[in-house]
C-alpha cells in the first residue's frame, strides 16, 4: 500500500501532489451549517454591543459572549478534528484583521452612544457586528480554501 511505504522513493512531482492531496482532504472537511455563522455573528454582536449597554448588562454579556465563543470552538474541533486560528493563515488573516478593525470601530460607536448618546447606538453596532461577522466568517473560509489549494509550503 502506497501510504505505508517508509522509503524515500517519492519523486518531487509526486511528493508535491501528495501534499496538495492531503491538504485538500482538510479543506473538504471544513463544511459547516449556516447556523454556525449566525451563532458567530451573535457572539460578536454581544461583544461589540455589550460595551454600550447600560448598567450591569455591559459586564453580564461579556462572559456570555466569551463562553459562547468557547463552545463554538469546542463544537468545531469535535466536528472536523482540527483547528486553525483566524490570524494564522498568511492570506486569510487579512480578513480577520479587517473584521477586527470593524469591531474596534463598532465598539467605539457603542461607547459613543453610552457616553454621548443616543443610548440605542449599541443596538445599531450590534446589528452591524452580527452581519459583518457572519459575512466575514464565510469570506475568511473562502480565502483560506483558495490559499490552501494554491500554496504548497
Amino acid at each position: 500500500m502506497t501510504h505505508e511505504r517508509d522509503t524515500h522513493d517519492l519523486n518531487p512531482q509526486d511528493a508535491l501532489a501528495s501534499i496538495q492531496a492531503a491538504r485538500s482532504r482538510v479543506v473538504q472537511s471544513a463544511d459547516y451549517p449556516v447556523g454556525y455563522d449566525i451563532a458567530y455573528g451573535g457572539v460578536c454582536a454581544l461583544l461589540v454591543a455589550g460595551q454600550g449597554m447600560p448598567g450591569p448588562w455591559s459586564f453580564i454579556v461579556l462572559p456570555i459572549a466569551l463562553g459562547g465563543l468557547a463552545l463554538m470552538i469546542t463544537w468545531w474541533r469535535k466536528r472536523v478534528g482540527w483547528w486553525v486560528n483566524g490570524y494564522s493563515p498568511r492570506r486569510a488573516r487579512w480578513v480577520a484583521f479587517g473584521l477586527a478593525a470593524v469591531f474596534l470601530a463598532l465598539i467605539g460607536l457603542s461607547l459613543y452612544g453610552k457616553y454621548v448618546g443616543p443610548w440605542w447606538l449599541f443596538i445599531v453596532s450590534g446589528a452591524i457586528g452580527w452581519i459583518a461577522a457572519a459575512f466575514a466568517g464565510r469570506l475568511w473560509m473562502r480565502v483560506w480554501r483558495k490559499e490552501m489549494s494554491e500554496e504548497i509550503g
Partner: protein
Amino acid sequence: MNPTPIFDPVIHAPGRLQICAILSSVDDAEFAMVRDAIAVSDSVMSKHVKQLEEAGYVAVSKLAAAGRQRTWLSLTAAGRAAFKAHVAELTRLAGVG
C-alpha cells in the same frame, strides 16, 4: 522570505510528508482525523508520529473530551521550518515555482 531548500529524509517518507502537509495547514489536528485523511492504520500512524516527535517536528497532547481522551498533534516551530525548507527543495527539484 523564502526558506533555504533543504531535503529532509524524516519528512520525505510518504506518510510523514502528508502528516506534515495537513499539520502545516492548521494549528492542530486530532490523531484520528489525520490517520483517516492519509488512510493508514493506527500503528503505522503512531510510528510516523513517533518519528516526527523524536525529530522535534511534532508536538503531541492528550485532551479529555466527553469522557474520552483524544490525541492532538501540532507542528512545532522547528517542524514548520523544516517542512517549508523541504517543500522548497521539492519545488526546486521539480522545477516549478
